[in-house]
């Protein structure tokens, strides 16, 4: 089993939901495919979708909804599908 850390590509505010009233993009333990959106990073009023670069199981989020991130901070851990 290989684990991959998903890191913040730039500083900003991390969101797990598309908007406050909607469910999270991905639950912990959920399987994601390449290109699936796992969260949003807001930087200077621009929202950028953070997408899975590899398929696998999203084991856990290190960053909660509305967490302030520095570039390189770990957002989540993914267990890569074999």
């Amino acid at each position: 089993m290989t684990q991959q850390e998903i890191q913040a590509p730039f500083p900003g505010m991390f969101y797990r939901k598309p908007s406050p009233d909607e469910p999270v993009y991905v639950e912990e333990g959920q399987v994601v495919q390449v290109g699936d959106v796992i969260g949003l990073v807001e930087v200077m009023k621009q929202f950028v979708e953070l997408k899975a670069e590899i398929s696998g199981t999203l084991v856990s989020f290190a960053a909660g909804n509305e967490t302030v991130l520095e570039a390189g901070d770990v957002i989540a851990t993914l267990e890569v599908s074999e």
Partner: protein
Amino acid sequence: MIRRLLIVNRGEIALRIVRAAQESGLVSIVAHSEADTDTLAVQRADEAVCIGPAQAAKSYLNIPAIIEAAKACQADAVHPGYGFLSESADFAQAVKEAGMVFIGPDAEIIARMGDKAMARQTAIEAGVPVVPGSPHAVKGLDDALTVVESVGFPLLIKAAAGGGGRGIRVAEDRDALAKQLPLAQAEAQASFGDGRVYLERFISRARHIEVQVLGDGKRAVHFFERECSLQRRRQKVFEEAPSPALDSATRKALCESAVALAEHVGYVGAGTLEYLFDDATGEFFFIEMNTRIQVEHPVTEMVTGFDLVREMIRLACGQPLRMAQEDIALKGWAIEMRINAEDPDRDFFPSPGKVETLIWPAGPGIRIDSGLYEGYKMPPFYDSLVAKLIVWDEDRESALKRAGRALDEFHLEGFSTTASLHRRLVEDPAVKEGAFDTTFLERWLAEPASNHSNVKEVIDEQ
């Protein structure tokens, strides 16, 4: 008269207002978020008060928290700056109800001019030209075709409930209108829950020209116009005063129409009337009014010599205008270049960071409005505007040269900015000729840089 002014904003405009407050003999208090405790505005202000967490919704947009902070620090007036709550009628009302002076017009005027349909109706009543369009929502094609007689083609089909560029379709001719109208109505119903659509003349190549006014409720004066056609994604990038497109007769007619509208509504404070100007026909059309100080106000200050922020504080306190129209004269030319923390080589992606090295341009005719200082780490939560580089000179040609010289002196390490874009723009032949409209900059950016003749010259020289 007021004594303690609470400034509910951040960045360069908070600092700008601190300066005006101090020069006016007021105690300046900056209301800031938890992410903004180390800004230059907070450092320079006489006092500071934290109003909430980093997210604007919980601080700079949080009316109850702001009113509470204003009371706690015994402020007797509130300046909203631009953006955030500056055009919130609710905020203006809340400030007034708390017994403080709002530095801006009354809530009723903010609400009236903030509603596009009401602003348009108000302009028509004041005799100000508006973009020709249907006086009411069009029902079916027959109804639309009667409107076409006065509006002409091409035209825009606009959703009544749309905004910010959403819910707009273009029809070039009768056939296109017949096809697009039902689609536009269905789309408007689906998107906004309101199927009403209006028709409006489509002015494909227009300039954005705006007029600065001040009013005291009885009388209004104008401070001439600003040309703000150089925009990217509807955001102004480079502004100047006056406009290179107007002859003196058109300038007079435009500016007088702005005064007529301001006086018609009994306007109090600083306001800006935005117009579309059609180079081809020389016609101008009112589009909207901003009931606040604007980002680009310094170019007006440079060419007229008045301090608009100090004046708006006086006016909000009920003082009459201190100047007559004939006291306000245009002198020279001013340019403002917005320095954003964005990378022009990466499609203007935000580039927050820490200021490692900073050398500002200086010398004759240079003004810098900025909250940057060496060691400052920009938070990633807010707008990317970090500095305004403003230059003044005797005429437009000299001002563009001075702008180039100023950009050469400007040195910032730590993150990318749009300064490099401005350095290329001020050398561009079309910019030098003042030959542009609101679509120019995006077309110019889409071209390979090697097509720009100023770059070619540099390459040829190497």
